[in-house]
């Protein structure tokens, strides 16, 4: 439909006439979308500021030394007593044992999950029969939908009891070997342990690592793969010679993002790790992680104990933030290198 512009007196300049319709709406819309975009920055800043403010009692009274002390035995005076919420003398609020537990369980999970994830990603891009590639992708995505609390429920009620016997035989096997008998052991040896948490975590982070790795593998130029095959390489040699060098940084980044997920995973770990404070390499013993102890104890926590638990959240936030930022840095550096190489 044609719109006829209103007559403009000859004396009037172009910029002085009536404003074209819709200009204001355009500007408002732009600012609304901008505000929505900036919300991410605002939320991230608020997460940091508000949790630090709530945990300041813990950070300020004890300082950084407490973050690296391994004694966590929080007891506070109960509500109704004169010193309600303050720490009972002699109790510890150190985070180190929990930081250790977090790093250890996620390390176990990563060691188990990376070969599986990369293998399945290769299955869906190069190795599997064509008709099976998409269904396998769907099944792995399905794994991502199962809520973590369901994995935890299965881990504690179904897996924990029978797997104790498996742990016992592994511990018996390694008992005479000097260093390994400190790792593959448990005191007490239980089904709810670092190893069980690692197993459950490995299942849970496999979908994310697989799907990120698949995206990376999909960017390998077909010409390079076919070139390798044409030179007489077997499929495995093609994967090692053409696929891996091209996607190494992408796979490293995927693994780091999976590591971040494993560290922050809460509920499943809270149910299967058995809740014990210790810095020990024993795989078959109970332990605890930053995220899990918050979920287990937050409900009843008061005063300085609650402050300390929120402080553990801050520590976790900083660790996962660093891991994620590093992952993105690796990824973008890899992309730049690929672009430069073109």
């Amino acid at each position, binding site marked *: 439909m044609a719109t006829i512009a209103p007559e403009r007196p000859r004396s009037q300049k172009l910029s002085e006439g009536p404003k074209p319709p819709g200009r204001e709406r355009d500007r408002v819309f732009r600012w609304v979308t901008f505000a929505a975009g900036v919300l991410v920055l605002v*939320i991230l800043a*608020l997460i940091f500021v508000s949790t630090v403010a709530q945990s300041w009692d813990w950070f300020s009274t004890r300082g950084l030394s407490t973050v690296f002390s391994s004694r966590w035995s929080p007891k506070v005076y109960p509500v109704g007593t004169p010193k309600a919420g303050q720490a009972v003398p002699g109790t510890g609020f150190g985070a180190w044992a929990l930081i250790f537990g977090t790093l250890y369980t996620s390390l176990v999970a990563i060691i188990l999950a990376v070969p599986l994830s990369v293998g399945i990603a290769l299955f869906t891009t190069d190795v599997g029969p064509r008709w099976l590639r998409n269904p396998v992708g769907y099944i792995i995505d399905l794994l991502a939908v199962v809520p973590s*609390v369901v994995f935890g429920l299965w881990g504690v009620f179904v897996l924990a009891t029978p797997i104790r016997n498996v742990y016992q035989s592994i511990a018996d096997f390694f008992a005479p070997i000097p260093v390994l008998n400190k790792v593959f052991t448990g005191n007490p040896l239980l089904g709810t342990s670092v190893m069980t948490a690692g197993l459950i975590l490995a299942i849970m982070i496999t979908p994310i690592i697989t799907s990120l790795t698949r995206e990376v593998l999909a960017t390998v130029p077909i010409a390079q793969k076919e070139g390798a095959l044409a030179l007489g390489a077997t499929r495995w040699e093609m994967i090692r010679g053409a696929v891996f060098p091209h996607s190494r940084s992408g796979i490293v980044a995927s693994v780091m993002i999976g590591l971040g997920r494993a560290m922050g995973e809460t509920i499943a770990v809270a149910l299967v790790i058995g809740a014990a404070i210790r810095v020990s390499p024993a795989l078959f013993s109970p332990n605890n992680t930053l995220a899990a102890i918050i979920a287990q104890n937050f409900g009843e926590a008061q005063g300085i104990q609650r402050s300390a638990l929120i402080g553990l959240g801050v520590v976790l936030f900083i660790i996962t933030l660093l891991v994620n930022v590093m992952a993105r840095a690796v990824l973008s550096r890899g992309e730049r290198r690929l672009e430069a190489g073109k």
Partner: protein
Amino acid sequence: MTAPASLLAPRPGTRARHARNRIATLSIWVALILVVVPLVAVIGAVIVKGASSISGSFLTQDINKITNGQKLAAAFAKVAGKQSTQDGIKPAIIGTLLITGLATLLAVPLGVLGGVYLNEYGGRSRFARLLRFLTEVMTGVPSIVMGLFVFSIVVVKTGFSLGWNVSGLAGSLALACLMLPVVIRATEEMLKLVPQELREASYALGARKSKTIVSVVLPAAAGGIVSGALLAVARASGETAPLVFVIGITRTTNTNLFSGGNVALSTEIFRNALSYGSYATARNRAWGEALVLIVIALSFTLLARLVTALFVRRRAA
């Protein structure tokens, strides 16, 4: 790229190379089986154990209190030859649906607008790149940290907090914070796929940028955005950590998200498994709740797949 030296170097016997290839292929198949087996085991256990506790009254009754007298009551009931109590999970089902629903209402519009900013206005500017980076970082923030954040800024009465106490709303806010970056990413990815010609055609007709985005670009990407949002909803509906200490607790249905404690399937499973694991009632209830929760999460996922399939077919036509 030059072929790596290892490929050009003289190879050991062909037989050994092919053997190695077969071993690698076999390991990859084994990896697949190792992941599929636990998946089948978990879903199988939930279906078998959950189905036995689900009945009409289980889905429509309030949640019973688990007391120290529970075992005694169960023993009496056995003697009397009837079931001890009518147990149910209706408040948790309603809670999960309402809390996730409100979170969706908060996160999806904001996420879509944020995605529009990144792709349509920000482009490759320095600030847009920073926001894109932060959005990706935010997808990696642990869900328990989101729970602590909402607790610190909405629930608790001290510090610079709103001090609203526990409520379904607090849970919705925490879930919305988790969903927001996911929706932004999905929207931006989908907007990237909209052909530039569509925008230019709209400008050529005299439409302004906002009109073009609302009437041309977003409808063209709608299918992908809806499917991305549904996947985010599916993930959020199963989240426990962000809810467990911000929504409080109730044993009766609370449809008011703005006041009073609430309850969700996920937090109920966690409480039952963590504290009452030795009671058969609590165990059975947790398995029943797990089955209902998986069905809910799965239906959102299947819906997302359906939308994607329809969308792809329409584009192909």
